[in-house]
């Protein structure tokens, strides 16, 4: 019997990522209820899955056929809706990244989950990517010894891929927010760090020996929608850069350089529904090459969620989820403060 899914938020991520993924896993899941504040969107998205629709998230939580709730609303709504899902007795909740907007919010969400026995999964597809996980298993000795970690996320605008991932309506590109003042630039940088860079921050955090000890040494917004941030963490350097623009070639790379090992991973762009990351681990003169696996991070995220829901897999330690959001917020916050200081 498939697991009933209720979705809160019917935007691009739901339309182009979660619904096509769930449609590939009919033996595991069936979408039962979709909520969006826009009734046309809610109806459209629900109809495609044969699900009920609503403009109130409480209706999704009250639906007895909904076993799993996917919170895909804007981040500001995550705490309220996740906590409500826990209190409604839902056994498993998937919350899109970022989990929370502050450590306090994250703590409250995890406390609610603990109190209700809800298993909380954060929608961070690279953490579930089989290519990444295979490379990670080979690179245990790299651990926290990388002197340089470089994350470069250079992608076309999302709508290039959204149109290939679904037949649904894709919302128009949002205008680029103003960057005239230091405060505006800091706000935009925070948004880009928590919207783009965050994808790989949990992967990076586990490779930093002193991840709470970070100093942002340089920061710059890159036009039209990018960032470049250099971070010092103890004896390690973290270089984060990203850019979205009108160019067809995606380059999503994560490189870790250790004393004797080099791990280079290339991820598929967001919204692409085929294949995992691929990469290479070089140790001295030896290489381990991992080619693209058939299942991608989105699919495995839901497969893992089904296993957690069935009790066949241990969910991520809540402390890890809190550490991940603390790290992401601290990097984004320190970068934004540095940007404001620089004027």
């Amino acid at each position, binding site marked *: 019997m498939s697991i009933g899914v209720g979705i809160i938020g019917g935007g691009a991520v739901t339309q182009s990522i979660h619904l096509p993924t769930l449609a590939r896993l009919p033996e595991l899941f069936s979408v039962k209820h979709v909520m969006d504040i826009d009734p046309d969107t809610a109806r459209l998205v629900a109809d495609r899955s044969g699900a009920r629709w609503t403009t109130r998230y409480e209706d999704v939580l009250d639906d007895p056929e909904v076993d799993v709730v996917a919170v895909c609303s804007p981040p500001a709504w995550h705490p309220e809706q996740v906590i409500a899902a826990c209190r409604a007795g839902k056994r498993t909740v998937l919350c899109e990244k970022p989990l929370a907007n502050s450590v306090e919010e994250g703590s409250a969400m995890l406390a609610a989950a603990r109190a209700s026995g809800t298993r909380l999964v954060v929608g961070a597809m690279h953490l579930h990517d089989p290519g990444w996980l295979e490379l990670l298993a080979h690179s245990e000795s790299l651990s926290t010894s990388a*002197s*340089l970690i*470089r994350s470069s996320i250079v992608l076309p605008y999302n709508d290039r891929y959204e149109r290939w991932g679904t037949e649904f309506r894709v919302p128009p590109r949002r205008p680029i927010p103003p960057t005239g003042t230091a405060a505006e630039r800091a706000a935009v940088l925070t948004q880009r760090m928590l919207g783009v860079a965050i994808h790989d921050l949990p992967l990076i955090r586990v490779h930093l020996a002193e991840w709470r000890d970070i100093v942002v040494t340089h920061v710059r917004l890159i036009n039209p929608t990018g960032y470049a941030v*250099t971070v010092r963490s103890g004896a390690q350097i973290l270089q984060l850069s990203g850019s979205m623009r*009108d*160019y067809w*070639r995606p380059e999503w790379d994560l490189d870790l350089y250790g004393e004797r090992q080099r791990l280079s991973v290339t991820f598929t762009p967001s919204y692409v529904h085929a294949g995992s990351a691929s990469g290479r681990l070089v140790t*001295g003169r030896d290489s381990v090459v991992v080619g693209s696996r058939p299942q991608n991070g989105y699919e495995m995220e839901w497969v893992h969620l089904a296993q957690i829901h069935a009790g066949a897999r241990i969910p991520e330690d809540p402390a890890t989820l809190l550490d991940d959001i603390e790290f992401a917020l601290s990097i984004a916050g320190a970068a934004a403060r540095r940007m404001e200081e620089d004027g």
Partner: protein
Amino acid sequence: MTVQITISVEGAQRGLRAALASLPESYRIVSDARDADVVVVDGGTPWATRTRALLAAGRTTVLIVDPDRFDADLIGELRQIAASAGSAVEVIRGWASDPAVEPFSDAVRDAVSPIMADSTMICDASGDVDRAQREHLDLVAAALGAPLEILDDQRVEGSRVVTAQAARDGASLLVVCCTVAMPGVEAEATVRLLTESGRLLLRLRSPDSARPAQSLIGDADGEVIAPYVYESAYRAVLRRLRASIPAGT
């Protein structure tokens, strides 16, 4: 018959001697600098002092090979001294003089709406990492066709990250350069310029490598790979130098 240029080589200069061996009609090696049209100075020695001495002694052309601290201002000063004496000073830099760099730099100059550049060099940890970083920054400046103004320089054991800016059409272009030292690797460098609607990428192997540089210029219609040039930086500069020296000098 082509008139050969006489050249004297100070130091071992393995790469340069290999290049000279491939230019038998253009150059003839002589042992005494006083008999040479071109005197090659080892960049691992106090090359500026040696160059000044050679120019003062009336040598026609001085070729500095792989200066350990490339200093554009100092080279300019030496060139001025040479020009006033009717001489010339040339420089070979293992990475920056690669024959793929100049056409790449031309493409960079023509690129519309650049948004940032970055570069990563991996070098052998058994060598001098600081020198590798200097050569890396030198390469990036040559590839971008503009000197770099360093904004941030982070160093840890094994890695360096420099954030810089390069002047570009009255504005500044952000440049991030990562240099990593690892044992037993073949050195390589990748320079990338992102524009609002394209990408320019230059991938170079160690100057000692047989593998040629790869240069890719991308726009909305696709990406063009420049033809591979199986010529070392040493040979490319020697050929250019030969062409600049009139026969019979």
